[in-house]
């Protein structure tokens, strides 16, 4: 069994396998989307490899972090645009 990590997404605790990216944690959290476009549309990861920038969230206060490129860490605080 893989080690589990607990972090917060929009204030809710989410448990993910160690090595997961923040994108995975946000999807598991059930958040409706990751960010909003300039016209207010919800967006989510499209490419999963750091190219499209659609998976940007706020991680530990740092805005516009590409969640698909950041591994989850214990106690991390993640906020989406909801």
């Amino acid at each position, binding site marked *: 069994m893989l080690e589990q990590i607990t972090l917060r997404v929009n204030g809710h605790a989410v448990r993910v396998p*160690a090595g997961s990216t923040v994108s995975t944690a946000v999807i598991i959290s059930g958040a409706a989307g990751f960010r909003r476009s300039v016209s207010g549309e919800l967006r*989510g990861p499209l*490419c*999963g*490899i*750091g190219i499209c920038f*659609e998976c940007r969230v706020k991680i530990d206060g740092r805005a516009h972090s590409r969640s698909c490129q950041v591994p989850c860490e214990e106690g991390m605080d993640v906020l989406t645009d909801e």
Partner: protein
Amino acid sequence: MNESRHACDILIIGAGPAGLAAACRAARGAKRVTIIDDNPGPGGQIWRRDQRKPNASPALAWLRAARGSGVEFIYGANVFDQPGTGLVLAETRDGVREIGYRQLILATGARERLLPFPGWTLPNVCGAGGLQALVKSGLSIEGKRVVVAGSGPLL
């Protein structure tokens, strides 16, 4: 913003198969070889590790060879500018990093090219490779319904 300077003889952008192979070869002759990649680890997309499986990737042998040759690795760093000859800037979680080099090798790989269609930007619509990357990073789609559009080689 925190800035720290790194210097090398040969800088390779991309730690996928091409970047690792280039580093191994370059390290035979150069004093200081550095690989930089915006991913948290090596392998690129082709050798992206499935977190639920033991790491049996062919990347391991190349990694060992590269490390054995003294190649330096910088992960989680996204090169975004080249303000002048011999210098690139990379964005990291700790701020901008300056990386000086004498020669530069681009091994930045490939990406999916998707045909836009109405609804393609909605959350939960992603590329086949994108979904594979998410699954390898711990997302389980077991028991979920997935609609697959297209019939290209990635499927």
